[in-house]
């Protein structure tokens, strides 16, 4: 579909509300640390650009994948953190002698993905009235390009565009970048816009 300025504004609004929800949820998860999230940056780009959209496609990243569906809308959502950012976050939450990329660290990463994605989808549900169910998260640790390419292939995505929401979170006196990729299935984005009476 063709995405115009009006559609972009709506996505930006959705991302802002989602980020607000996410900050609250993360503060609770991260032991009442004060977490702030900057107003996220929203980009819309062709699928082919996904593998390089987060910088070097060979960079090792942690990707948490979830699928949301309900009321005729289906989306694949992927949270992508650089390996460094993932380790930075997780080491704060794990006992000292625990491998941040071990089993416990992996579970924590998936939970983090779950919370962030639920926060964003909560915003989408509030704005549209659609009820979306989330699948349990899956985790991949590998080259950004390989992970994201696999997502497009596994989901047999033929939609031309994806939505990238760049988040910067401030926690533990550090800025941590996280990216959310939204891949709507054919027709889903149109359905969302129609429901909201936009353009």
């Amino acid at each position: 579909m063709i995405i115009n300025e009006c559609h972009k504004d709506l996505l930006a609004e959705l991302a802002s509300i989602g980020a607000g929800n996410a900050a609250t949820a993360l503060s609770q998860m991260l032991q009442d640390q004060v977490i702030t999230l900057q107003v996220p940056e929203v980009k819309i780009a062709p699928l082919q650009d996904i593998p390089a959209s987060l910088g070097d496609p060979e960079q090792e990243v942690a990707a948490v994948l979830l699928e949301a569906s309900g009321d005729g809308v289906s989306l694949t959502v992927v949270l992508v953190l650089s390996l460094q950012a993932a380790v930075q976050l997780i080491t704060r939450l794990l006992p000292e002698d625990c491998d941040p990329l071990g089993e416990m660290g992996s579970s924590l990463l998936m939970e983090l993905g779950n919370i962030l994605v639920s926060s964003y989808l909560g915003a989408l549900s509030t704005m549209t009235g659609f009820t979306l169910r989330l699948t349990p998260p899956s985790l991949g640790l590998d080259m950004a390009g390989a992970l994201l390419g696999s997502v497009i292939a596994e989901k047999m995505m033929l939609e031309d565009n994806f939505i990238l929401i760049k988040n910067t979170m401030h926690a533990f006196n550090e800025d941590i970048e996280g990216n959310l990729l939204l891949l709507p299935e054919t027709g889903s984005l149109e359905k969302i816009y129609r429901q909201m009476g936009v353009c």
Partner: protein
Amino acid sequence: MKTIYVRIADLAALQGDGVLVTVGLGSCVGVALYDPKNKVAGLAHILLDNSERYIKPSANHFNPAKFADTAIPALIKTMEGLGARRRNLVAHIAGGSSLFNFKFDGAGIGQKNLAVVRARLDELSIPIQSENSGGNYGRTMKFYASTGKVEISTVSKGEKKSVTVPTNPAL
């Protein structure tokens, strides 16, 4: 040395001195074809297995490089434009892994992609000289046109490893 980056669902070829690179093959499959006599190298980064399962080839914006069945003939055509001969071609393939713990019905897309690539190469009588595929990790392919060698690298927990195939390219 000239370097061409081949993106996802894309293909490229070059002759003589240069390198073709495709970064981050997960379930996607990289197909490297080489004409050792004419030093023509071609590389495709294939996303999906069989175009007929997804789209009509007559559809608007049809991208043959996206699918295994259509990418290989398109790659050969591009290489022939640079002086390659079909009967000289040999292949190296890599990728087709499965990185997430998705729940599938039957084989994952990586395995499906590999099956169609192998079948298509077989139909075209192009021998597969090396295959570095499957598993649960991503790969980067670097393909050197002057030697026909392919370097495959992986990353895991901050460590990068690479192997080169074939060790003695058949000329």
